[in-house]
């Protein structure tokens, strides 16, 4: 199988997710080439052809033009599979390529079993085995699903690609995440609030438990989107990635994006009324309870302890 991996380059940096693409290629024993709109000053470590478009000319986000550049690489390499990360860059560009090539697209692949692609369904509660029926398949890989056994090595043979295509959108720059506040990435104990807290008044229940445990409190995306907790406390792919000694997930179902942000925690306690919630998959202890009843009792007992 021939696979063309699509590396990402943002803010003048080659993103580390390229290693997950390489791990996927290794696992599927694919003959590998890579495509990147980037710079020759930062080349991915691997042995094979790198189709390189100059980021100074084409920009970091410019999907209509990146599509044409990638199609030029596809025309040369003739891959059977085109592999993206399931990221803001990948899920944006992948369907454009699939549409142009009349290829099937399989999104957010979490595993490959005997050549079959496995994806989540219903926010991770179920799994689906997908059978593409086209000569070319486009896939996006869930963040963190594929890991490399060894540090990547090698140096690619660079082939420049170019296009005359005009931009269809105008990308003018980045806006940074709000700085300041807490740095959850350094916290040893984190108690996080999810949608299950029900109303903003219950945030104090979570912060009280965090306090008595000597830690910080965090939140999942819906709680931050509702503006019950400030953004710099959000745990997940679009917030902070954390690795505390203890993570207590209160009323968090465990959306894939949240799990990606906390699954490196040493010990995970989940408090949830839904025994089948995906958070149970990463929990060392799952307390099946309504957090509004359970958390105050726990806090009180810890205080007395």
């Amino acid at each position, binding site marked *: 199988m021939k696979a063309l991996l699509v590396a990402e380059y943002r803010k003048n940096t080659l993103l580390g997710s390229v290693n997950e693409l390489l791990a996927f290629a290794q696992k599927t024993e694919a003959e590998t080439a890579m495509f990147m709109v980037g710079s020759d000053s930062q080349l991915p470590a691997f042995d094979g052809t790198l189709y390189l478009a100059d980021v100074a000319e084409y920009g970091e986000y410019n999907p209509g033009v990146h599509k044409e550049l990638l199609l030029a690489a596809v025309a040369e390499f003739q891959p059977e599979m085109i592999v993206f990360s399931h990221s*803001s860059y990948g899920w944006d560009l992948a*369907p454009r390529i699939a549409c142009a090539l009349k290829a099937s697209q399989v999104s957010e692949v979490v595993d490959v079993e005997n050549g079959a692609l496995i994806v989540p369904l219903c926010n991770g509660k179920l799994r689906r085995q997908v059978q593409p029926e086209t000569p070319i398949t486009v896939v996006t890989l869930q963040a963190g699903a594929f890991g490399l056994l060894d540090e990547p090595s090698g140096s690619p043979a660079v082939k420049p690609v170019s296009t005359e295509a005009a931009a269809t959108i105008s990308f*003018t720059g980045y806006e940074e995440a709000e700085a300041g506040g807490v740095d959850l990435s350094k916290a040893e104990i984190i108690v996080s609030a999810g949608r299950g807290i029900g109303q903003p008044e219950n945030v104090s229940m979570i912060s009280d438990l965090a306090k008595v445990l000597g830690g910080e409190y965090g939140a999942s995306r819906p709680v931050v989107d509702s503006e019950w907790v400030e953004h710099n406390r959000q745990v997940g792919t679009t917030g902070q990635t954390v690795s505390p000694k203890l993570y207590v997930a209160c009323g968090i179902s465990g959306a894939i994006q949240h799990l990606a942000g906390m699954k490196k925690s040493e010990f995970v306690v989940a408090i949830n009324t839904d025994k089948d919630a995906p958070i149970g998959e990463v929990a060392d202890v799952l307390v099946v309870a309504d957090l509004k009843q359970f958390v105050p009792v726990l806090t009180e007992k810890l205080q007395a302890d």
Partner: protein
Amino acid sequence: MKILVCIKQVPDMESKFKIDSAGTWYDTADLAWRMNEYDEYAVEQAVRLKEESGDADLTVLCIGSDKVKETMKKALAMGCDRGVHVTDDAVSSKEPFEIAGIIAEFARDKQFDLIFTGMQSQDRGSAQVGVLVAEMLAIPSISTIVDFSYADGLAEVKRELEGGVRALVSVKTPALFTCQLGLNTPRYPTLPNIMKAKRKELLSVPVQELLNIQARQKTAKTYFPEKKGGGIVLEGDPAELADNLIQILKEKTAILS
């Protein structure tokens, strides 16, 4: 100005799911259904744009069996002008290319200035349909927006990237936008608007009239992931649970020593 918003009806994700008899999807019986969460933000943005512009015409489209009308009524009560119900009893087995093909075929000759969709659905989660519709219509699209403003044929948006970073992007209409959670605060329909929605136009179009793309993939099987062993499940009275949990934390972590 003509606006289209595309919505999907999905099960409540807290539901107790079962596998269907074919073993290729979840069983759709005995589930509570609602509007895909991402699409609520799309509807809200479309309605706000209509309110700001004053003279916009806003159509909401949904594909599915008769039960999706309930979800469409919510969109109409939120402020959409009319509904287009593409009737299809087999919607859940259709893959993103077929769904996008149906929507693009409907939209092709309608000259929509702006199209809004959710960035993904909560069940299938492919994040493909919106971008595919735009590609099929040959109009620009911007995915995963968390901020939107529009004036004189130019939309200025923020795209959400990883780690809380946003990309600032602008595009001339016609264009399509896929909406991320947090883009706005979707409104709750008021009772008068729910009553008004009952009198709004709800067109019905059989899917056969719009479907001209073949499936490019199929689901071989659907199953529950294996539970990773080792996790302890505690159930019972809150006070007992708290004692049990404290005991476990003392034994297994260095935190309560």
